[in-house]
C-alpha cells in the first residue's frame, strides 16, 4: 500500500487549485450534470476547459477527444477532492460519458470510437440507455424490441420504458433482439440509435419526485444502419453487461456520497431547532457519525477497486457490492437530512421556509429510484451470492 502524495502530486494539486482560483467563480455548481437544454451550454464550456487542463476525460486517449493521461488513482482522487471542495461541477456526466464511453473503448469499432467518444465526453452528444421494457426489467434478457433486416439497415419496432434522459438525448444505446431464431441471451445486439430517427416517439413519465425523470420510447419501423451494432450481432448481452458494470459504479460514486455528507454536516450545523443545532442532538449526531464511517469506508473501497482494476487483479466479491452498499448509504444520508429538519423537512415545491430547494426530500426519493434502477437491490444480492460467493442459481420452475 502506498498513498504517499509525493512532490509530483503536491504540484498536481497546486496546479489544480490555481486553476480553480482562476475559474471556479464562473463554473457551474456541484456534482456532474447532463449537458442538455439551456443549462447545457455553460456545462459544455466548463467541460471543455476541464478536458483542456486534464481534469475531465483525463484517461480517454487524445485521438478520441480526451486528455490522454495514464490512469493514476491519486490524480483521480485529488481531482474529485478539489472540485468537490470548491463546490464546482465535476463536468459532464450521465450515461454517455460514464457508461457508453468505457463500453465503446472496450468493444467499439474504430469508426464508432472516432465518431462518438469525442462528442460524448464534450457533452455535445447526449445518450440514453434503452434496456428496460414493460415486460422485461430484472429479467432483462427477455427484451422483445426487435430489429428486422432491410438491406444494410435494421427496422426496429417495440417499446422501451423507464429510459432516463431519453427526452433530451441525441442517441440511445439499446438492447435489441436481432436474431429471433437464437436462444434468449444469444438473440440480442447492442445497437446505437439516433433519437431523431423517424418512427421513434418519446413520451416523458413523471416520477414520484414530481419531475419527468424518465420516459417511454416507442419504435415503429425505425431505420438504423446495421453498422451501428457494437461488437458482433448476437453479442449484445455480454456488451450490455460491461455497460451495467460501469453504471453500478456510477450510481454509487463515492464523490457523490462525500458531497452529500458535506452538505448534511453543514445543514446540521446551521439549522436551529428549539434554539439548538441538529448536531447538538446526541441521537442525530450518532446517526451522522455512523453514516460518515460508511461513506469513508466506501471511499477507500473505491480506491481498492480502482487499484485492482489497474493491476488487472480480479476484485472478487468485493467488486460486486458497491452498488448495493453505496445506494443504501446515499438514501440514508438524505433521510437524515429530512430528520434533521424535522417538520420543516416535509416542505416541497416552492414552499415558504423551504431549505436547499427541497433537495433533501427530492434526493431521498431519487436515491430510492437508484436502489431500484441499474439492477434492483434484490438482483444485486443474487449477483453477489452467485458470482461472488459461488451459491447456486434458483432452480427454474417446472413448465406447466
Amino acid at each position: 500500500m502506498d498513498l504517499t502524495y509525493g512532490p509530483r502530486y503536491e504540484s498536481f494539486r497546486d496546479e489544480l487549485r490555481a486553476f480553480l482560483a482562476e475559474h471556479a467563480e464562473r463554473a457551474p455548481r456541484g456534482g456532474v450534470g447532463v449537458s442538455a437544454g439551456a443549462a447545457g451550454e455553460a456545462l459544455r464550456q466548463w467541460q471543455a476547459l476541464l478536458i483542456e487542463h486534464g481534469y475531465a476525460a483525463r484517461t480517454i486517449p487524445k485521438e478520441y477527444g480526451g486528455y490522454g493521461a495514464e490512469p493514476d488513482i491519486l490524480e483521480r482522487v485529488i481531482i474529485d477532492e478539489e472540485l468537490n471542495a470548491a463546490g464546482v461541477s465535476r463536468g459532464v456526466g450521465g450515461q454517455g460519458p460514464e457508461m457508453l464511453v468505457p463500453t465503446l473503448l472496450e468493444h467499439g469499432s474504430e469508426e464508432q470510437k472516432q465518431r462518438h467518444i469525442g462528442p460524448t465526453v464534450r457533452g455535445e452528444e447526449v445518450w440514453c440507455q434503452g434496456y428496460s421494457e414493460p415486460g422485461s426489467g430484472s429479467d432483462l434478457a427477455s427484451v422483445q424490441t426487435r430489429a428486422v433486416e432491410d438491406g444494410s439497415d435494421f427496422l426496429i419496432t417495440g417499446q422501451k420504458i423507464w429510459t432516463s434522459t431519453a427526452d433530451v438525448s441525441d442517441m440511445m444505446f439499446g438492447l435489441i433482439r436481432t436474431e429471433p431464431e437464437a436462444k434468449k441471451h444469444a438473440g440480442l445486439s447492442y445497437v446505437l440509435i439516433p433519437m431523431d430517427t423517424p418512427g421513434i416517439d418519446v413520451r416523458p413519465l413523471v416520477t414520484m419526485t414530481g419531475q419527468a425523470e424518465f420516459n417511454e420510447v416507442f419504435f415503429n419501423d425505425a431505420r438504423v444502419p446495421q453498422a451501428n451494432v457494437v461488437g458482433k450481432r448476437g453479442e449484445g448481452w455480454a456488451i450490455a453487461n460491461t455497460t451495467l458494470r460501469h453504471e453500478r459504479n456510477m450510481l454509487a460514486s463515492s464523490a457523490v456520497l462525500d458531497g452529500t455528507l458535506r452538505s448534511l454536516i453543514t445543514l446540521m450545523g446551521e439549522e436551529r431547532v428549539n434554539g439548538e443545532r441538529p448536531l447538538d442532538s446526541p441521537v442525530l449526531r450518532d446517526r451522522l457519525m455512523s453514516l460518515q464511517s460508511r461513506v469513508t469506508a466506501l471511499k477507500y473501497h473505491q480506491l481498492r477497486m480502482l487499484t485492482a482494476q489497474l493491476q488487472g487483479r480480479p476484485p472478487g466479491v468485493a467488486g460486486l457490492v458497491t452498488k448495493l452498499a453505496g445506494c443504501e448509504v446515499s438514501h440514508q444520508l438524505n433521510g437524515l437530512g429530512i430528520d434533521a429538519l424535522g417538520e420543516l423537512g416535509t416542505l416541497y415545491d416552492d414552499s415558504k421556509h423551504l431549505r436547499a430547494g427541497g433537495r433533501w426530500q427530492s434526493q431521498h426519493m431519487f436515491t430510492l429510484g437508484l436502489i431500484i434502477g441499474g439492477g434492483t437491490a434484490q438482483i444485486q444480492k443474487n449477483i453477489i451470492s452467485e458470482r461472488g460467493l459461488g451459491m447456486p442459481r434458483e432452480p427454474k420452475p417446472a413448465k406447466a
Partner: protein
Amino acid sequence: MDFALSEEQELLAQSLRRFLEEDCPVTRVRELVADEPGSDGGVWKALCELGIAGLLVPEEHGGSGLGMLDAAIAAESLAWGVCPGPFLASAVMAPIALAEAGTPEQQKRLLPALATGSLRIAVAATELVSKRGEAGVEVRDGRLHGTTLLVLDAFGADLFLVPTDGGAGLALVEAGAAGLVQTGLPTVDRTRGFAELVFDGVAVSEWVGAEGGAAAATRRMLDAGRVVLAADALGASERALELAVAYALQRKQFDRVIGSFQAVKHLCAEMAAELEPARSLVWYAAHAFDHEPDEASLMAAHAKALLSEVGPFVVRTATEVHGGIGFTDEQNLHYWFKRVGVDRQLLGAPEVLHEEAARLQGLVD
C-alpha cells in the same frame, strides 16, 4: 501508488491461516480455553516463533519492524481462527507505548523480550474509555492505588502496563507485586483472558515516559488497540460468513441445498456487502495510523465503530443460516459470535466512538 495489500501481506495472512487450521483448529481452541479463559497452551509460543509477537518491534530490537497494516492483517487472521494469545496487548499496544514514550534503555531491554514472546505485557485500558464508579488508578506518594477492570490479555502476563490519572502516566507493574490483587474476569469470549487489578500502594517498577507526561503515548496506544480490534472483528466475521456459505452449500431441505433458497442467498450477500467496504476502511485506518497522523485517531474510531456494527450483524446472520445447529455448543460457531461480541465493547462501542469522532472533528464541544 496503490491501495492494496502487498504480496508479503497476503502471504502473511495465508500462512497464519494455514498454521491455525493445522495446529490450532477451533476444536483445539475449545480444549485450551476450557479451564481458563485466554489459556493458549503452546500456541502463542509457536506464533512467536513465526515472528507474530515482533511484527511491530523495530528490527534493531529483534522484531520485523513492520507497520500497523501488517499488524491488522495478523489480527484478522488470528481472529479468523479464534486464536487465543496476547496479540492485542503484548504485540500491539505495549510495543506502541514503548516505541512512543520508552527510553532507549527501556526499548533495548523490553522490546526484544516482547518480540520473542519471553515477556508478556497486559494493558489496563478500560478506564481510558469507560470508568465504573470508583475505578481508575492514581499515584499517591509514588505508589499506585485504585482499581482497573477488564485488563486486556491478563492471562499469563509478566507485567501490567497501567495508565494512571486518566492516562497522563503509564506505569509498568510486576505481576504478583506486593499489594496487587489480580482476579480473573471471565467474559462470554473464553479465547481471551481478562482480569481486574486492585492496587493498594503498589510500587511502580518503572514509568514509560515521564511520570504524568505520557498522554500522547496513551492516545497512540488506544488508537492502535482500536485498529487491531476492528481487524479482529473483521477476521472473525469473515470466517463466520465462510462457514455459513459452506454450510448452506451442503445442508439439504426440501430436496435441495439451502444455499439455493434466495432467502438464504440474500442473507449471505448482505453479509458480504457489509464486510467488504468495512475491510477497506480497516486497511485505511491502519495505513493512516502510520502515515496520516492528522487522521489517525478519527480513522481508528470510525473503523472500530463500523466493525462493531458490521461484525455483530454478520455473526448473528451466519448463526441463523446454520439453523438449530448454529445455536448449539457443539457446533463451535459461537466462538466467533462471542469474539465479535467482545470486540464490539472493548475500547469503545459505536456510541462512544461516534461521540469521539464528532469531537475530533470539532462538530461538538
